[in-house]
């Protein structure tokens, strides 16, 4: 399912920094830093969109998107970024990395996180139509 996850600021991390760090860490599950070529240093899985207020950022996600797991993948940084994960969900995520060759992104979305649809995002001003022709 295609949708959007609005990323809240947490601690010293702004919404923007946290959103960009999460999508970067998702990329690193497939291609860990120790294996990366120079062209992979900015790789991400999901796009990040900015609210016109300049404060809120969201991940444009596909919950069915399959993330291959490298045998060298580590999860510590991703877990620190996804503070919404419960202890059970952290164990579940760790299990995926340890045992699965790949997993759908939707399987690691925290249970307390809402994936918003396009209508919600438009209604809440994420896609202002002043730049769009109708």
């Amino acid at each position, binding site marked *: 399912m295609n949708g959007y996850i609005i990323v809240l600021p947490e601690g010293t991390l702004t919404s923007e920094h946290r959103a960009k760090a999460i999508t970067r860490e998702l990329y690193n599950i*497939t291609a860990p830093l120790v294996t990366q070529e120079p062209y992979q240093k900015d*790789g991400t899985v999901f796009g990040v969109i900015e609210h016109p207020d300049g404060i809120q950022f969201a991940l444009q996600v596909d919950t069915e998107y399959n993330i291959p797991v490298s045998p060298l993948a580590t999860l510590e940084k991703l877990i620190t970024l996804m503070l919404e994960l419960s202890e059970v969900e952290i164990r579940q995520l760790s299990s995926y990395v340890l045992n699965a060759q790949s997993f759908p992104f939707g399987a690691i979305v925290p249970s307390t996180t809402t994936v918003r649809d396009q209508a919600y995002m438009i209604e809440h001003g994420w896609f202002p139509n002043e730049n769009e022709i109708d």
Partner: protein
Amino acid sequence: MKSTLNGVVTATGNGKTFSTNGLDLAVGGSSYSTVQFRGNLSEAILFGVDKYTSGDIASIRENVGDYFTQNTPLLDTYSGAAAAYSLRKLSSSYSGSAIRVRRSSDNTEQDIGFNVFGELDTVSLLAFAGTGDAFVKTWYCQSGNSNDATQTATGSQPKIVSSGAVIVENGKPAVQFDGTDDELSVSSYPFSQSDIYIASIGKHTDTTTEGNLYSFGNASTIYALGFNRDAASTYSATRFLGAHEAQGDSYNQTQSLFSQLYASSTTSAYLDGVQGTQSYTCRGRFNSNSIGGRDGLYFLNGNIQEIVIYDSDQSANRTNIESNIATFYDITL
């Protein structure tokens, strides 16, 4: 013996029989006189039986003609493109790759070029992709203007290989957009003047959901081609400068050749060479240039094989350009 030129018999006469006159077969001259050919020769086929009376000559001629249509790069004949994206080589002077792909297994990337026939090097592509999937990160611009189309987020990259098989349409490789978030971004608005022409091969499989094949916009003007905006199962090409100047018609979700022309202050849209009759509109966005969507929304659910963009009036060349494209992609005009 009959001589034909472009399929028309131009001369008849008595031929020579090699087996009885003892003359050698010569190419580029005559074996029994000093007359010599001055010019270029690309192909000569000698059959030992009568192919005219049998009727085979028509299909032979079509085969040869198609080959030379397909193997004379489009932009060699119709030059001046502002941007050009294709899975075949469009210009003899272009020395770059067709696409940069990422394989799903480890996010490794590789450039994929063309084979000796000027078509996508699917051997290299499959050797790289293995049994998994491969996605297009960059669709290189072959116009020489470096208007590459790129998507850095892996989740939004369109697919070119699925489970170890190249995605094809009418037997030719195709870039598949998933209709949910796949999109390629072009870094700059490709036009500098108002007269334009855009030809593209693709499809949108949804009958009601909106989708854009492309949208190119600067601060004041937008050129876009989309589907199902004003009615189900329709396509539309629009030019927006304060208001829509749009044309379109019904569309049956099949692989088609779409073209959009703005010349003599008039917008025209064509589907497989037939001009639209309705004033249907589509979406677009200012200061945004996208292939497979409209900058974050209205994603194409289908595929694209080629988009050629001219920053000029191509009214005089339109039918020939579209004939070239249709021949290669097996589209009936």
